[in-house]
């Protein structure tokens, strides 16, 4: 009921609607990648190395003669998946720690907030790379590492929401009537903090997609021969003097996807939170 209204209200916002349409299109393309890809993404063809865009290869071919369009479609699945799972992890941690800090306050709050301060003072890209140095780069590890290093924003947000909601009459009333901690948290505090959490998660996905593409570009994320937008760009750099299409298309895909998430997130913020005037 309430959620349905929120959803409709959000989509009346032109920014959110544009972002939503972009994301849906990207997801559909990725979902149907095995059906719509003109070639097998891993099919090496020595007779078709570094061909420019043409009718048979819309986005050209790479240094091993693989069809770039097919690799882009399959790579999209990885990039989208990593973004979603990483943000799922960071949001879950953020909600848990933020709720603990905002609800119990006192030393729990102090401890969690100092932990947030410490995590924020380590440059996140350094932190992620250092962790990866001690692990093997793989899709699962990338998702976990991005998730484990980006929960601080959500934690602060949930804590702030809980602290302000805690003082509101309906929560006080419920508490006076003898509601237990769990009931207060799950029926009153958490549902009323959902809007900012959703907004920050959507924007978080944008960040995670960028992070994954950066890591894969550096060769520390998704590993070849598995395609991802980031590691196609690695080839792009290698062949930059001969094959502009290897650099152009994957970057455009990242840009459009991240833009979609950013538009959706900012649009949701504008639509659902009348106080903000950002963007």
């Amino acid at each position: 009921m309430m959620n349905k209204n929120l959803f409709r209200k959000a989509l009346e916002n032109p920014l959110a609607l544009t972002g939503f349409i972009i994301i849906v299109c990207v997801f559909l393309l990725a979902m149907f990648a095995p059906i719509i890809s003109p070639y097998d993404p891993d099919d090496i063809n020595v007779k078709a190395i570094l061909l420019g865009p043409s009718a048979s290869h819309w986005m050209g071919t790479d240094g091993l003669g693989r069809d770039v369009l097919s690799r882009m479609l399959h790579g999209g699945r990885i990039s989208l998946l990593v973004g979603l799972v990483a943000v799922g992890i960071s949001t879950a941690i953020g909600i848990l720690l933020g709720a603990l800090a905002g609800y119990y306050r006192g030393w729990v709050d102090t401890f969690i907030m100092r932990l947030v301060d410490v995590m924020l003072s380590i440059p996140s890209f350094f932190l992620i790379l250092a962790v990866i140095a001690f692990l093997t780069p793989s899709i699962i590890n990338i998702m976990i590492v991005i998730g484990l290093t980006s929960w601080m924003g959500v934690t602060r947000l949930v804590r702030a929401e809980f602290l302000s909601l805690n003082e509101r009459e309906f929560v006080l009333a419920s508490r006076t009537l003898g509601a237990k901690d769990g009931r207060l948290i799950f029926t009153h505090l958490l549902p009323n903090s959902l809007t900012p959490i959703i907004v920050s998660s959507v924007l978080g996905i944008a960040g995670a997609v960028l992070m994954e593409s950066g890591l894969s570009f550096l060769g520390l994320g998704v590993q070849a021969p598995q395609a991802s937008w980031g590691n196609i760009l690695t080839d792009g750099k290698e062949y930059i003097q001969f094959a502009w299409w290897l650099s152009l298309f994957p970057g455009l895909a990242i840009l459009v996807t991240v833009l979609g998430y950013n538009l959706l997130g900012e649009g949701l913020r504008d639509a659902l939170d009348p106080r903000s005037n950002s963007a």
Partner: protein
Amino acid sequence: MFKYLIKRVLWMVPMLIGISLISFLIMHLAPGDITNNEASFNPKASEESRQKLRELYNLDKPVIVQYGLWLKRMATLDFGTSFATHQKPVFWQKTDKDGNVTKGLIQEALPITLMINILGLFLTLVLAIPLGIIAARKYGGWQDKTITLFNFVGFSIPGFWLSLLLMYWLGVVNNWFPISGLHSINYDNLDTLGKLKDSISHLFMPVIIPSVTGLAGITLFVKNGMLDVLFQDYITTARSKGLTEHKVVYTHALRNALLPLITIVGLSIPGLIGGSVIAETIFAIPGMGKLFYDSVLMRDFPVIMGILTIGSALTLIGNMLADVAYAWADPRVRRGVARG
């Protein structure tokens, strides 16, 4: 003010201890111990190199002793010797008996990274402040809409992709700028002016790219700050007493709108330091980011841990300087600080 400064510096101590705990945790993250892991990456890793790792991090001692020794390493900035180059990771400059100086790896790399980031940050501010002011003054107009669109693209564009495009267009197609390194091969033979020109052309792309990608956030921030200020009572007062619009905007509004920018610049430091990894790798700049990337590829743990620590310390120092500068620049806070 002095008391505040002392307090703020002391605050860094528990933070550094926290950072030491996190970095200790990272080292023990690998399943088993890191020596197995290193061996699994590199089948040629000999028993000897494993022994070296064990000694470096005292892996044969109890965990609490290991942590104590790690804390000592951090406190003395002694992270051991790089596996790859046998240089010290941090600042230890050694002069051997022939007078050859061996510098610490970070000692060589850090100034380059700092220079590029400071130039980039400066450029960002020079562009972002006017853009933000225009967007706020023409709020809702076409100028504002264009800048907003630009901001969305700026937030979403991968910096390394922009680097590749510029590299292709400015470096490969037009050959206007060199695409890698800090100097040309013939740098040492150039005269002073030639050296300066050479350095600028090498630095152009590495500096311009982080500032373009960082522009969106700062522009938005200036715009929102201006919008908040422009509707306050004292601005109405300034207008109604007949001041020119120029004077209202640039002397009354701007000063208050820009104050929070100090904090934002402080907060952007970890992003800048971290972002230098990709930028420096692309343009082959021998700074701290490239050093870190190379160390991660070679699993050169002493250097990795050294850079992690120095990077975090820089962030803490940057944030502290921002807080102090804010307290100094804002008379309201300054008086509050003096009282408290």
